[in-house]
């Protein structure tokens, strides 16, 4: 009797997940839980949750160009840093509020991304990866020698009560930044879901990823679509960059333009599962927690680096579709065994 009941319960749960509106309800419940979360957390854990939201959003923004469009952007972190610096320059030099500064940064990065995207998106594969990487490094070195970015001294943000530009908020605090990141992060996820999983645009993007020439021959304007995805993903990275910079109040080119920022986004998207909505969310939370809590639990602040390295290698070797692939049942024990056997055959060197 009881087993029968359990079976029906499981079937019902499965049926719920298979419904067409399941993503909507999942999203709504998650949004509700995350909205009330700060009331249950102390400052330390609010900060952790805030950082996780930031990285989930960033990983999702990389996933748009890297996972859905298949263009390996190794310079995505540049927009995170440029967004941070433009917001800061607007606030300190022009004296505008944070909201206006962030808008200016988004507009600036849209223009920049378009200008960079037009020539670089003509390149493919490794060339695109190298070009974007070189672009990001050049931007970082430029920020280190320019005066307007504070050069090697970095830049400090105004933090007064009027600096947010939102009259009902006042002086920014942890809770304000939590909700800011929540809105940005959930907005990014909802936008990505609607654009890439529910609209015709998404199918066009995936067609380009899977076979650009074939997609083009079917009448898809690959050039235009690639540029749109690139600009969109870069603007989102810039928004997070500006928001994060205002939160940490002091920025330095070596921090907000570090290659590690791009690297983390790629790793998060890959570990979770490329080209899926859930991937960057799962990967982002996993890597962020491993990174942030490593000194707490591992007793060493650098030990997480080799661990992440091993994790990346293991994922690529045995579960290329990431955690989402494992959850969907695409990667099982048999696949790992097959992979190991094929790997063993490649050691035939004598």
């Amino acid at each position, binding site marked *: 009797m009881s087993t029968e009941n359990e079976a029906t319960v499981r079937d019902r749960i499965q049926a719920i997940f298979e419904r067409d509106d399941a993503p909507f309800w999942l999203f709504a419940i998650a949004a509700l839980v995350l909205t009330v979360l700060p009331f249950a957390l102390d400052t330390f854990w609010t900060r952790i949750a805030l950082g996780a939201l930031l990285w989930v959003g960033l990983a999702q923004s990389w996933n748009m160009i890297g996972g859905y469009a298949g263009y390996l952007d190794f310079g995505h972190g540049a927009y995170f840093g440029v967004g941070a610096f433009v917001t800061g320059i607007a606030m300190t030099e022009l004296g505008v509020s944070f909201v206006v500064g962030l808008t200016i940064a988004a507009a600036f990065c849209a223009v920049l991304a378009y200008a960079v995207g037009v020539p670089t998106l003509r390149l493919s594969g490794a*060339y695109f990866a*190298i070009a974007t990487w070189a672009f990001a490094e050049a931007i970082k070195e430029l920020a280190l020698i320019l005066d307007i970015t504070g050069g090697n001294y970095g830049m400090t943000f105004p933090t007064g009560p009027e600096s947010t530009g939102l009259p009902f908020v006042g002086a920014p605090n942890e809770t304000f930044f939590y909700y800011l990141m929540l809105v940005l992060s959930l907005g990014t996820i909802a936008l990505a879901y609607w654009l890439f999983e529910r609209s015709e645009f998404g199918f066009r993007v995936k067609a380009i990823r899977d076979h650009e020439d074939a997609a083009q021959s079917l009448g898809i304007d690959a050039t235009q679509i690639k540029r749109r995805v690139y600009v969109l993903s870069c603007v989102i990275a810039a928004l997070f960059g500006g928001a994060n910079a205002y939160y940490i109040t002091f920025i330095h080119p070596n921090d907000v333009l570090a290659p590690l920022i791009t690297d983390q986004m790629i790793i998060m998207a890959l570990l979770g599962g490329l080209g899926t909505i859930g991937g960057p969310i799962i990967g982002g939370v996993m890597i962020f927690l491993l990174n942030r809590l490593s000194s707490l639990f591992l007793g060493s602040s650098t*030990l997480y680096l080799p661990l992440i390295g091993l994790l990346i290698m293991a994922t690529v070797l045995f579960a290329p579709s990431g955690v989402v692939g494992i959850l969907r049942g695409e990667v099982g024990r048999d696949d790992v065994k097959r992979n190991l056997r094929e790997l063993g055959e490649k050691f035939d060197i004598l």
Partner: protein
Amino acid sequence: MVSTELLVQSIINGLLLGGIYVTVGVGFALVFGVLEIIDFAVGEYVMLGAFTGAIVAPILGGEGLFVVPIAFVVFFLVGVAVQPFIHHVTTGDRPMPLLMGLVFTFGLATFLRGSVLTIFGPNTRNVPTKALSGGIDVTGIGVFPEIRVVTAIVGVLSLVAFMYYLYRTTGGTAIRAIAEDRDIAGLMGVNINRYQSIAYGVYAGLTATGGVFIGLIYAAGPGMGLQYTAFAFFMIVLAGLGYLPGIIVSGVVLGLVQSLTSIYLGGDVVFFALFGLIYLLLLVRPEGLLGKGEVA
């Protein structure tokens, strides 16, 4: 105003630097040509080579030069063991094999850098040498450190030896055949797994050897790798992806750009100049400075 002496000095220094960059670039270009992967771990092999020098040299009586052959053999074996993994992730039914190769070597680089950082700490160490601590005085131009001159000579010699292997021996022919067409080479009876492993082993050994010399000139530190990964990318883009002889030119250009910009524009502009140059070059001439590489 511009002193000719300074100009000649910095040009010679640039040429000397270029010699050692060639060692790093040539293996990297080969690995791209044969294995069709962009190896993000290249700078970490340089770092490991330099670290091997810093740790092993004191045991061998404080002479860093003795470490050179050891580093080559050890990292040849490391490379032979690592290559099958890379080959595995770039073949088969995986989506986006290029990304998988890039990310796998990126994971390897993170693992290597993180391990050295965790085990040895963030401090830099010196690679000692007694034999080559003097300078060579060229009348009218200036004094050049012996170690730089020897390093440049060794760089050129290792390139010549490598080219000999590649163009005059059976193994080298097999490697070039794989670079030409992997499937047809396999049908002709070339043991692809074996020669790919050897190619990667030679590359890892050569790069680590270059690392020992770089450690002798500068110092060994866990964070130094990234810079040399950047240099290696710079060199293959400049040479044209897949075009080996171009590496000599691009290594020398890299040395000259580095030496001249740091003298005339200041040390902090060097990287901006380099990356700006790669970026522009990829957009204007993706087939490389000499126009002989593959086009995107």
